[in-house]
């Protein structure tokens, strides 16, 4: 099946205008909560600077920090695995389950496992995976991917969730009360937590100095899963490291405030050692990260702490929905991470932006997101990953703009055409015209006007 590109997906999403408005307003409301929360911290901007600088140091010394983290985690009794790509990551997780004869696993939120398509892989191998974050469970029941990294089912109406729960969890038909639905999920997932021998979680931060990992949730699902299972597997990208515990203060102050406007997530749990007699495995995953580390212009994207602030503020994301990005991570940050994974497949994403810069302004680690979107466009054109129409249009534009004679002729032609034959331009072949009216035609060009007026002034 051919994947539709962002513009096509966005066009589909926009067929339901009311829904788009609702989606837009909901995310903007979260952006406003972020602002309110950030403005209460006088040193907010200094925190962002510090976070960005800590991550810059981490990336510049990542080799040493990884070795240090591994050494300290091993000393804590944790098992460490290294995966070069998604396949190796999936194989490692499956291998651990198989070794213990486990065929059912509970999972808390991990965008990395979405990136690696772990659930589908394990299901093909006969392992049942239940996502325990409420939003993730909802999209899992709907057989959809998450549409937002922090709010996985932000695109869904409560009535749709009510129907899903009625079908799968036996809630009363027509009941769409969030309180009732959450309670039903609590009961269903409590049973899951109590009966699973393996729990997989993501990782928000890993501390090189101590070998511990930090996992942040509001629901408590990562802890419920990990503390009740015999086997805890935590999967993380190699960029999740921070040098020491002192640095966690900076990131934990920024993360939840940037994400939802909360002062901190309900639970920020630090796992250093496995429980007595149990196992804690950490899988360190590359999957393109070392490649991105080597791209000087795009390296900063690895500073991302996955708060989702850039999505909530993005005028394009808010009006096109997370699924339009056809990638595990949507929005502006997804659009600069995805082309690194598969340039051709995600060549449309850096163009899904107005380059307004709002994303860069809210990013807690000060990633130059909109600059990177612009830089990706240049790379993608050079590598031949844009459509011929766009390339031709850009080439024609460049030639015209660099020649005064051609520019004059083109201007004159456009004015005449728009005046006498507007249908030549205002038609469905002109993508620009689809959502806009063409401008009103001026009587003359600026240089014609100038010459006339100058003569009049001199007289």
């Amino acid at each position: 099946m051919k994947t539709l590109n962002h513009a096509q997906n966005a066009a589909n999403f926009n067929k339901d205008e009311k829904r788009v408005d609702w989606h837009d307003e909901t995310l903007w409301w979260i952006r406003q909560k972020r602002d309110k929360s950030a403005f209460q911290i006088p040193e907010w901007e200094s925190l962002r600077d510090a976070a960005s600088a800590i991550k810059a140091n981490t990336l510049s010394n990542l080799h040493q920090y990884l070795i240090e983290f591994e050494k300290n985690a091993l000393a804590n009794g944790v098992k460490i695995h290294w995966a070069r790509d998604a396949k190796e990551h999936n194989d490692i997780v499956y291998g651990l389950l198989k070794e213990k004869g486990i065929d059912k696993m509970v999972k808390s939120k991990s965008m990395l496992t979405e990136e690696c398509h772990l659930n589908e892989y394990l299901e093909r191998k006969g392992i049942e995976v239940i996502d325990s974050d409420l939003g993730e469970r909802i999209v899992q029941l709907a057989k959809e991917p998450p549409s937002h990294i922090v709010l996985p089912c932000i695109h869904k109406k409560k009535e749709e969730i009510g129907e899903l729960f009625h079908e799968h969890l036996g809630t009363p038909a027509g009941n769409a009360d969030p309180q009732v639905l959450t309670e039903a999920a609590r009961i269903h997932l409590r049973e899951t937590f109590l009966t699973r021998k393996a729990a997989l979680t993501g990782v928000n931060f890993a501390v090189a100095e101590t070998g511990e990992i930090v996992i942040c949730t509001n629901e408590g699902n990562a802890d419920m899963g990990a503390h009740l299972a015999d086997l805890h597997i935590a999967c993380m990208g190699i960029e999740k490291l921070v040098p020491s515990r002192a640095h966690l203060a900076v990131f934990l102050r920024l993360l939840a405030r940037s994400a939802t406007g909360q002062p901190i997530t309900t639970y920020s749990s630090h796992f250093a050692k496995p429980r007595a007699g149990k196992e804690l495995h950490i899988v360190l995953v590359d999957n393109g990260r070392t490649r991105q580390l080597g791209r000087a212009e795009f390296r900063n994207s690895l500073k991302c702490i996955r708060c989702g602030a850039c999505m909530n503020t993005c005028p394009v994301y808010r009006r096109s929905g997370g699924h339009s990005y056809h990638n595990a991570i949507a929005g502006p940050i997804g659009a600069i991470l995805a082309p690194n994974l598969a340039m051709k497949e995600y060549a449309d994403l850096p163009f899904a932006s107005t380059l307004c810069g709002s994303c860069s302004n809210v990013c807690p680690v000060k990633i130059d997101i909109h600059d990177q979107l612009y830089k990706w466009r240049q790379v993608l054109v050079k590598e031949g990953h844009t459509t011929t129409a766009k390339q031709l249009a850009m080439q024609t534009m460049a030639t015209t703009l660099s020649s005064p004679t051609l520019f004059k002729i083109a201007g004159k032609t456009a004015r005449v055409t728009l005046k006498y034959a507007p249908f030549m331009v205002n038609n469905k072949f002109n993508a620009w015209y689809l959502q806009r009216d063409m401008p009103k035609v001026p009587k003359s060009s600026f240089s014609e006007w100038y010459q006339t007026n100058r003569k009049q002034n001199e007289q």
Partner: protein
Amino acid sequence: MSSRDQILTAVKANQPPLMTLPALDSFFESPKNELIIKFTQVLSSIGGSVIEVEDETEIGAFIREHYPLANIRAISPLANMQGIADRYEAENNPHKLENVELAILPAHFAVAENGACWLSETLLAERVLPFITQHLILVVNKNDILPTMHEAYQKISDETYGYGTFIAGPSKTADIEQSLVLGAHGARSLLVFLV
């Protein structure tokens, strides 16, 4: 070459020249006064409750009055709570805690800026206890409220623990149309006593 060595080699080859770590000293200048007020205000705004008491006997009296202790399973390691809650000895069997209604636990310290309390493994019979219990009560010394997370991590910078967690409020979710619901998977309520 193993995957580990391949990844480490690629990291070494691709990482940029060393950038220095920023100083964090300036973040330790938050106001040190009115910490109780700030903590109470913030925790209340995120769904928790705070009660100031003179001593632990007051806590016992409050719990007796507000929880149906005769019908529920309550657990606490605190000596002063032994009349109202069972001391739970760790047996490495967290599933036995499935039916706990109320857990009354001490916390090492609290953080004013975000309403969080820090508990490390030494205070927990089982790691799952503060999560699996239906309701959670934490007891913190009022002199142990720190202004921000910077002071919090300074305090635990050299500590060794197998597990530790900051708890800020009851378990919650807003995944369904951003409607806030308390009691997602963890404790449905959080009450903090400041002694």
